[in-house]
């Protein structure tokens, strides 16, 4: 178990800058998720921590020791790859014992460790099978077992669930989180799926274009996104972000809708943000025309057109309207987000 510090880490491939000086502090035992759209540099950062990519600038420390020039095997980390990277010609047992075999561990210790990990992951009956004989979820567990047996200081996960189907993904998500809580090992997890990030992380690091947009606890990011990127990225369905200006005693969107502002709102506001779930059905609300109704069972998502502006609302109530009908909605004023012309959150 250890802390991980990334200080001004830079990565350059030829003339392309991938990371522009990134700072992340990870506490001992913390579960950190690096999240962002593809190409944002999150996997590169993880691979730099693993030692699979060299560091063009800055430094990375694991457990207080700077590891810039330490080879991967001496960093005391374990990594789970996106396609699991199980050795196809070895059985599950051999796959899990491989690192210990290289370290010349005694046979009985190896057997014991493999058994222990297999028990934790429910792989006891599969130890003599080959990877090709396993399902996607089982392969995923073997990949984790291979990481567990090493008792590493840090677990690294590189989009480990993206090859699984939706149902299994939800199940493995809980399993990984539960496992992490049980082992209390510092974990860095890369994903492009913000739901994975929200549900699993102690700390989320939102990355975009080689920079960190915001880092913090999941709910802090949800409640107070620092800028338009984070506001649009965290939360599903995504926040309504409506460009416009403060005028006429409210916020006039470019599409012509007039939305109410919270008291004391900053007059510089250039974008009005409201999450779909923070819109309420209200008889005295703003009137809009229904474009689309999407019931999910637990809630109903409604796309409305107010003037030329389209906004999405998610309601607990069952909305009975049909496209073309009128509906009145009102934003919860305490949960309105306002962003300045530079895209940053206004106080």
């Amino acid at each position, binding site marked *: 178990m250890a802390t991980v510090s990334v200080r001004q880490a830079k990565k350059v491939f030829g003339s392309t800058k991938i990371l522009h000086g990134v700072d992340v502090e990870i506490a001992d035992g913390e579960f950190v998720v690096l999240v962002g759209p593809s190409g944002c540099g999150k996997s590169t950062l993880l691979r730099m921590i693993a030692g699979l990519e060299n560091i063009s600038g800055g430094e990375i420390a694991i457990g207080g020791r700077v590891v810039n020039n330490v080879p991967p*095997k001496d960093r005391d980390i374990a*990594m789970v790859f996106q396609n699991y990277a199980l050795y196809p010609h070895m059985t599950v047992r051999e796959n899990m014992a491989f690192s210990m075999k290289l370290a010349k561990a005694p046979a009985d210790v190896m057997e014991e460790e493999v058994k222990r990990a297999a028990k934790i992951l429910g792989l006891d009956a599969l130890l003599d099978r080959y990877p090709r004989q396993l399902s996607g979820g089982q392969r995923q567990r073997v990949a984790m077992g291979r990481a567990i047996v090493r008792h590493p200081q840090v677990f690294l996960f590189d989009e480990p669930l993206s090859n699984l189907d939706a149902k299994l993904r939800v199940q493995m998500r809980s399993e990984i989180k539960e496992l992490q809580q049980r082992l209390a090992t510092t974990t860095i997890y890369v994903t492009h799926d913000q739901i994975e990030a929200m549900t699993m992380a102690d700390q989320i690091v939102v990355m975009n274009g080689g920079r960190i947009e915001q880092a913090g606890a999941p709910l802090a990011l949800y409640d107070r996104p620092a800028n338009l990127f984070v506001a649009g990225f965290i939360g599903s369905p995504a926040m309504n972000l409506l460009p416009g200006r403060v005028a006429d005693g409210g916020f006039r969107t470019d599409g012509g809708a007039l939305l109410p502002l919270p008291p004391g709102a900053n007059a510089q506001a250039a974008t009005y943000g409201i999450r779909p779930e923070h819109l309420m059905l209200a008889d005295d609300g703003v009137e809009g025309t229904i474009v689309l109704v999407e019931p999910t069972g637990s809630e109903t998502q409604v796309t409305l057109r107010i003037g030329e502006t389209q906004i999405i609302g998610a309601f607990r109530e069952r909305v009975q309207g049909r496209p073309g009908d009128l509906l009145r909605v009102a934003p919860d004023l305490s949960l309105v987000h306002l962003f300045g012309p530079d895209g940053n959150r206004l106080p």
Partner: protein
Amino acid sequence: MTDAAAAPQSNTATAAPEMLSWDSKSRRVVMLYVPLACFLLILLFPFYWMTVTAFKPNAELYDYATHNPFWITSPTLDHIRHLLFNTSYPHWLWTTMLVSIAATFLSLLSSTLAAYAIQRLRFRGSQYVGLAIYLAYLVPPSILFIPLATMVVRLGLFDTPFALILTYPTFLVPFCTWLLIGYFKSIPYELEECALIDGASRLQILRQITLPLAIPGLISAGIFSFTLSWNEFIYALAFIQSSENKTVPVAILTELVTGDVYQWGALMAGSLLGSLPVAIFYSFFVDYYVSSLTGAVKE
């Protein structure tokens, strides 16, 4: 215009079921089995001719007017007996085997290391090294054998099997290296990265991860090398002089043609026995061979 467009459409709609039934049976015969049969006939005829000639007595062999050239009426083992007991054929066979196996082993060893380095270590200029190795393959042996002959003589290897064992890799290594580069490329790099994190060194990765997964590729490179060495003619002709050190392809041509007399029976018997080891070798590994040319590593 609309009528014209509609008419062929309705035609195809009605014709479709018939075409499907034709597709399933007759079409398979015409499109698949008949061409395959022709192909097989053409490919196997030389072997048949070789076999028939090897077991034919001389009387039948030289008189097609009274005997059917495609059949034997009284088969004989005379030619094979002559080959095995009156010539050095067993020794030729042994030399060929030794040279082929040794040259194959040497070539595989160096090609594996070369291909791995070029494909995975990606050192500065590795692409150019790969290209240079390939270009070496394009130099024809008929040009190369003259300078090689000088080297062979200076090293005192003339008329020994080592002359061939050390020169065959000149065409085997480039070929195998290119085949193996392609094969290594198909092995997911993540496996090696994972092994790197697991604590393996480069050599351990090569030995315990990459090579076991590259076995089909190694086998097909081995088969190619073995066959090419076994059939090689020009170096064997140039670098070996004494009768007993010759390889089979050269020996049957130089030793079994006396003056202007072709001992057809013995020649064909020699070719037949000489082609058997290669054929047996192939048949064992044909699955690997095909998979290495068509497929990649499956997890």
